[in-house]
């Protein structure tokens, strides 16, 4: 290169341009790498990493035999991106065929000026597979956990149901929600340029734990028997509804809890919320003559009466505090046993008067009336037992015949269980165990004694009297062939909401008892609300008791009174 080099200027210009270019690149590099480093690093992280909240699946609910009653399953939910749709009406028509929803409704959603719209959530798996076949542009699916109740309406009032976001709203689903819910966990995913997940940040990261499983004391088969028989009775008597509760008297474990009418927890919105109520716990009613069982228990325990004590029946009519108490059967001198067996109102009223206010109130409370039993289900009512200072002149007689008192079906079956098991008032329960995914028990419920209202001798004597109700009294239709049954009928007038007085046409018929009387395995209460035509508990409720017992007892392997006996030698290792 010389001073006269004709290309010198050109080279200098090119060098300067290149220099300027490099300076520009360096400046840009400095800006990106130093000045905007933090912001750009964060943006790159956002593009390559994705943090998602993962929730373990909700735990299942099982009956005492391990049969599935509620289970979670991942199902597709469909969403649309309206901005990327060219032909919303065509897409809506295609979707409507699969989703069984009106096309107009879907089209209205797809024409909204939004970047994301839900079209249908938590579909059936079959619908999801049909949608995959359509592969529509602008329409996508995500998987969400959906609660399934495979047995439909069976045990719906105990199971309850969970909401769209998996939270328990009623029944066991609500009471045990904290156990059933799966663990929530944040997971960081690495994504490639195409948005595909490469792998989680740490390969050793554990998946979130699923919710715990709840095992009930309910037996699916006994529950089915109770529901079937109750529904048939409610339909046959054209009643407003009914309740049947089956309890194991020795433990307080609930084997079945049936409410009529039923609902399907898979489609809760199809019925009014009023139908969801577990009436066995929430609704208190005047029990009528079934209350005589507990007045009799008090009288026997306090030795005010014995089975042979004679009481005059006043020929079916007695005036108390200016009001008349009637018996449906006129009688003269009858024994205390006959008072219960014939369900004499006058005899029961006289028994209560012999006991006095304080003792009647004390025993009614001791049998658990007027207080919550603390069962592990939500919404339990305490019922109504007035303090003696609020009693009127007729209250003592009214209490004896099951008026001026409000009890729940659960309280009634728990109290009659105390007579059945020799005097122990047990705490009722429906959940026997909660266990984690490895089968390790987290919660274990067993029999719990609340108190002992009567002695074993009183319980035995009373059982004998209650057997007479079925063999010689008002409860003949509760007799189960081959088994000894003890129980009591009840027919209570309802208060007419219009007049505020007892209605001459609205009744509640009930039967409560236990079987076999000599070694009770089942305590059952059956309540039929507002039956038409005949309303007597012995006519509408006692047959339901019999049909439940005669099917449930052989199922449980309970021998009838005259079983075939086989003598057999057995070694200690074979003993049951």
């Amino acid at each position, binding site marked *: 290169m010389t001073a006269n080099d004709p290309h010198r200027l050109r080279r200098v210009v090119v060098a300067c341009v290149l220099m300027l270019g490099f300076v520009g690149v360096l400046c840009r590099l400095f800006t990106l790498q130093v000045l905007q480093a933090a912001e750009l690093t964060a943006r790159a992280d956002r593009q390559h990493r994705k943090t998602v909240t993962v929730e373990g699946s909700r735990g299942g609910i099982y009956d005492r035999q391990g049969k599935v009653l509620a289970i979670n399953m*991942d199902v597709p939910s469909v969403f649309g991106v309206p901005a990327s749709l060219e032909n919303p009406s065509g897409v809506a028509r295609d979707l409507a065929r699969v989703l069984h929803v009106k096309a107009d409704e879907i089209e209205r959603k797809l024409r909204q000026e939004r970047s994301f719209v839900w079209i249908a959530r938590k579909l059936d798996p079959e619908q999801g597979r049909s949608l995959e076949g359509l592969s529509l542009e602008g329409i996508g699916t995500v998987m969400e956990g959906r609660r399934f109740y495979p047995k439909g309406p069976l045990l719906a009032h105990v199971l309850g149901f969970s909401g769209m976001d998996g939270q328990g709203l009623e029944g066991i689903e609500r009471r045990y929600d904290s156990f059933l819910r799966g663990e929530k966990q944040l997971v960081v995913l690495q994504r490639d340029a195409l948005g595909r997940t490469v*792998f989680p940040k740490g390969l050793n990261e554990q998946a979130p734990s699923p919710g715990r499983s709840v095992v009930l004391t309910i037996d699916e088969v006994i529950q089915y028997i109770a529901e079937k028989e109750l529904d048939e009775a409610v339909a046959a008597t054209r009643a407003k509804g009914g309740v049947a509760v089956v309890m194991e008297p020795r433990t307080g474990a609930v084997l079945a809890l049936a409410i009529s009418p039923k609902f399907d927890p898979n489609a809760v919105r199809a019925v009014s919320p009023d139908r969801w109520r577990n009436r066995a716990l929430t609704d208190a009613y005047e029990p009528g003559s079934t209350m005589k069982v507990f007045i009799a228990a008090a009288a026997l325990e306090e030795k005010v009466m014995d089975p042979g004590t004679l009481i005059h029946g006043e020929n079916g009519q007695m005036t108390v505090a200016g009001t008349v108490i009637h018996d449906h059967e006129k009688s003269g001198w009858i024994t205390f046993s006959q008072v219960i067996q014939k369900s004499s109102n006058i005899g029961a009223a006289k028994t209560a008067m012999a006991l006095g206010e304080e003792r009647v109130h004390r025993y009614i409370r001791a049998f658990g009336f007027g207080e919550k039993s603390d069962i592990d289900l939500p919404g339990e009512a305490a019922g109504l037992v007035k303090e003696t200072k609020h009693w009127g002149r007729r209250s003592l007689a009214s209490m004896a015949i099951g008026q001026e008192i409000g009890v729940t079906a659960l309280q009634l079956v728990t109290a009659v269980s105390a007579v059945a098991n020799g005097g122990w008032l047990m705490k009722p329960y429906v959940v026997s165990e909660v266990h984690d995914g490895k089968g390790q028990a987290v919660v274990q419920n067993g029999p719990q004694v609340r108190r002992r209202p009567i002695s074993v001798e009183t319980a035995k004597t009373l059982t004998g009297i209650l057997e007479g109700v079925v063999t010689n009294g008002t409860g003949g239709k509760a007799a189960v062939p081959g088994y000894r049954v003890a129980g009591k009928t009840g027919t209570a007038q309802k208060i007419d909401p219009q007049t505020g007085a007892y209605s001459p046409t609205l009744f509640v018929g009930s039967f409560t008892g236990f079987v076999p009387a000599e070694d009770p395995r089942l305590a059952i209460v059956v309540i039929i609300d507002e039956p038409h035509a005949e309303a007597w508990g012995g006519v509408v409720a006692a047959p339901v008791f019999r049909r439940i017992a005669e099917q449930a007892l052989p199922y449980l392997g309970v021998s009838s009174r005259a079983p075939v006996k086989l003598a057999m030698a057995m070694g200690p290792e074979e003993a049951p």
Partner: protein
Amino acid sequence: MKTVAFAVVMVLLLLYVWERVDIVRVGYQVERLKSKKVALQRESDELRVKVSALTAPERIAHAAADKLGMMPPGQGQIVLVRVETTLPTNAGPAMPELRLAKNEVGGRMP
């Protein structure tokens, strides 16, 4: 000597690059297997729901009565056999273990 050192450095570099590429490849494989596991889990859950629905007592009762012509056993058709045995002396208690409810400590106990 220099050539050997250069070759060793190059081999190490290639090994490093190969390792990184392989990690990504295994990552994709893990993701594919995880997706497969999720799909199988969903299928298993779906089958459990189906089994549970098909074994519902109401469905079985209807199938037994309508399809097979079965009916509930009548009185005397069930004979329960009680096996009388000489139990060993250490036989367990007949009653289950009882506990006192927490809220009833003041209750009347024998």
